[in-house]
């Protein structure tokens, strides 16, 4: 029995040491970073979102294409805690040696604009490449009395706050889009947040919501089934997609607001230039790869090209940040401290 007691102790100590070692591994790799050959081992791609969402699936598919050009595998890892903050913290605490890449979407700028994280995204990271845009559309259920966007807006002006528009997570991109569109169009409506796309779609089909907003591919499902009537594309021109050719763009209707989602990649700011260039080249080649073109076409993210090189991408961050900060301040969702 004495033996067993010691064994318990030994195993407990063993587990604790193992945890300690795992958490320290990253610091060891700093010293061995060799600038001449990159990459020497697999590169980690941090996805600050949960498994199964659009951004997760995009990053996983894209990382497989990049791996072919990088010569080492790009390993996807989800760090979805604290609404992207955990992924951000994880990537910022990793050494700036090019072995940790962060997938980014507007959500990271929103977190910064709301002052939710101690780590400021734009001061710590720099862009590699922006890959795609995901267009957002507004629509109504097919039995709705509103046939055009004008009718909808007129109704909204006459009945402020009466229309209900749904979206995911309060204080997220959907909330911003609903509020900023309303401001640009001079209307008022009520934003109702849902936990998942499933509940959102059920709510528009079941009649709980008046206005439905979603990203293109997800939106098209309900358009092709005839359940949803698309009213407006948040874009400067119409989309050349069967079923959407007659749907006006928001700019065309005099509403100067075009925001969708987008996806790209970034890296810690003080990463050596040589390493950064190797990565940009691999990501660029993956972008030109026919397999990516096929993926883009399937997911309908090729309609409004989102591709941007690092410099341009970086400027777009600042512009979007300002917009987010303004709207969320009005909504009272900016942390004060």
């Amino acid at each position, binding site marked *: 029995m004495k033996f067993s007691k010691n064994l318990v102790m030994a195993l407990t100590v063993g587990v604790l040491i193992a945890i300690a070692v795992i958490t320290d591994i990253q610091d060891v790799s700093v010293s061995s970073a060799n600038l001449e050959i990159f990459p020497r081992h697999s590169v980690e791609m941090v996805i600050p979102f949960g498994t*199964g*969402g659009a951004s997760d699936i995009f990053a996983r598919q894209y990382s*497989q294409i990049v791996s072919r050009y990088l010569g080492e595998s790009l390993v996807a890892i989800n760090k979805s*805690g604290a609404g992207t903050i955990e992924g951000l913290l994880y990537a910022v605490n990793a050494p700036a040696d090019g072995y940790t890449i962060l997938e980014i979407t507007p959500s990271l700028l929103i977190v910064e604009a709301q002052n939710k994280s101690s780590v400021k995204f734009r001061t710590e990271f720099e862009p590699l490449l922006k890959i795609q845009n995901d267009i957002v559309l507004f629509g109504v259920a097919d039995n709705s009395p509103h046939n055009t966007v004008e009718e909808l807006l007129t109704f909204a002006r006459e009945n402020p706050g009466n229309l209900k528009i749904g979206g995911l997570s*309060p204080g997220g991109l959907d909330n911003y889009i609903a509020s900023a569109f309303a401001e640009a169009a001079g209307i008022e409506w009520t934003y109702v947040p849902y936990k998942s*796309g499933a509940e959102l779609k059920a709510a528009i089909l079941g009649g709980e919501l008046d206005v439905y907003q979603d990203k293109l591919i997800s939106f098209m499902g*309900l358009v092709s*089934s005839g359940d949803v009537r698309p009213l407006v594309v948040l874009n400067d021109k119409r989309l050349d997609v069967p079923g959407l050719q007659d749907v006006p763009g928001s700019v065309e209707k005099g509403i100067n607001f075009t925001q969708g989602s987008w996806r790209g990649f970034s890296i810690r700011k003080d990463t050596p230039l040589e390493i950064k260039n190797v990565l940009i080249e691999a990501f660029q080649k993956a972008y030109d790869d026919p397999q990516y073109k096929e993926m883009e076409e399937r*997911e309908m993210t090729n309609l409004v090209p989102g591709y941007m090189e690092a410099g341009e991408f970086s400027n777009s961050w600042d512009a979007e940040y300002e917009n987010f900060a303004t709207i969320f301040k009005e909504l009272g969702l900016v942390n004060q401290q």
Partner: protein
Amino acid sequence: MDIILQSIEVVFNPLTLSLIVIGTLFGIICGSLPGLSSSMAIILCLPFTYSMDPIPAIVLLVTVYLGGATGGSISAILLKTPGTPEAIATTFDGYPMAQNGMAGKALGLAVTASAFGAIFSAFIMLLAAPLLASAALSFQSAEYFGLGLIGLGCITSIGARNQMKAILAVLIGLMISTIGIDSINGMERFSFGQPFLLNGINYISVMIGAFAIAEVYKNIERYYQRDTNLRTKGKISMTLMKFSDMAKMWDTFLKGSILGTLIGIIPAAGGSIASLIAYGEASGRHKDEKPSFGDGNPRGIIAPESSNNAAIGGSMVPTMVLGIPGSPVAAVIMASFLIIGLTPGPLLIREQPILLNAIFLAMIASALLLFIGGRFVTSQFAHILKLPYPLLGTFIVALGLVGAYSLNNSFYDVFVMFIFSLVGYFFDKFNYSTAALILGLILGDLIENSLRRQIIVGEGSLMGFVSRPLALAIIVVAIITFIWPAISKLLNSKGS
């Protein structure tokens, strides 16, 4: 007829059949390991489907889902560690039954009930998919609120031994569920400036801590006090009950499957909620049976296991017909539909008539394979159980650690797990119900958000709960569930 023949041809060819075998087995293995949920297992399979035809690809994913929902019960029964969230309710009676030396029987029941539930829901899916899918849309915020209340009503049966303490535990659970970013107006609640609390307390790490790790503490204590050898005696292998014995409990099989299928069809509510409600229903109806619920009543395994597998067929209904996933795992399957090049929606069933039949056949085949796969994985677990307790306990802690860490790849979840292992330990010591705590934690979110959403939608009025017939009916059932034990006690005392 032609379609049926075609789908038989597609499913029963060597490649697809072997995918069914691989998918089911892989699902059971992932499901039985707490670190790998069904969604993760499906994502791991996804890259292999890129080069496949659509039907074999979907068949693979659905069988992984089915295997995962069943595998979760193996670790729930043997280690008190639910391998998947769907298996929480299975621990309530499965583990005590295993402790009473009937582990094999418990596993046999779990697998039989799983297979029954899966086959039942597959038939419903095939026969009534379009009809049920549109009915699912009458489920809106007011109805979700009612569903949450029914779930909460389960405490009157779960915590039958000490009502007051069970209610207290539920309230603590409800309170914990409010931590994090408020999902209606985006404000931070009880986060104390800690980023890791923004997403709230993950109920899976609470569950692993309060069930599995707390049980290890308890066993360590026993080990030191009595110095007994806690080694599992005898051989554990899955044993099937006699058909006639099981037939006596036909109503639980059937009710679990019906509840599971229905809750599966409701968008976004999946196997975890289904199994809790089915468990609550069974324990309320048969509460005078011996052994009582919580001590290893066989119905306490049948109800959750048949319903969590029935939720699979149910959740595939709106996924395919409306493009609205019926459960969180079905949402991952739907995302893979898009990668494979299929657009879910009414057109899908028209354009791909074989698909629905193929999924049906695959589910049946996979359900039958559960018996073989379950036996195999159980025999592997049985080896682990033969270890002396110091080793087994360490193994369970390590498994729990990995399980909690892999939720978000975050040590904060491990931290939460350890905090709640202490909570679970003391709850157990002072007869507070851990199950009630977790029930409150899981349902708090659903109840609070659907209530507040209904108030927004109803522009501040609560009339929606009364004017919507379905919501009213559900809420009335929920209230009856709550007060029934008190009423029946009153009636009994009058009778005598």
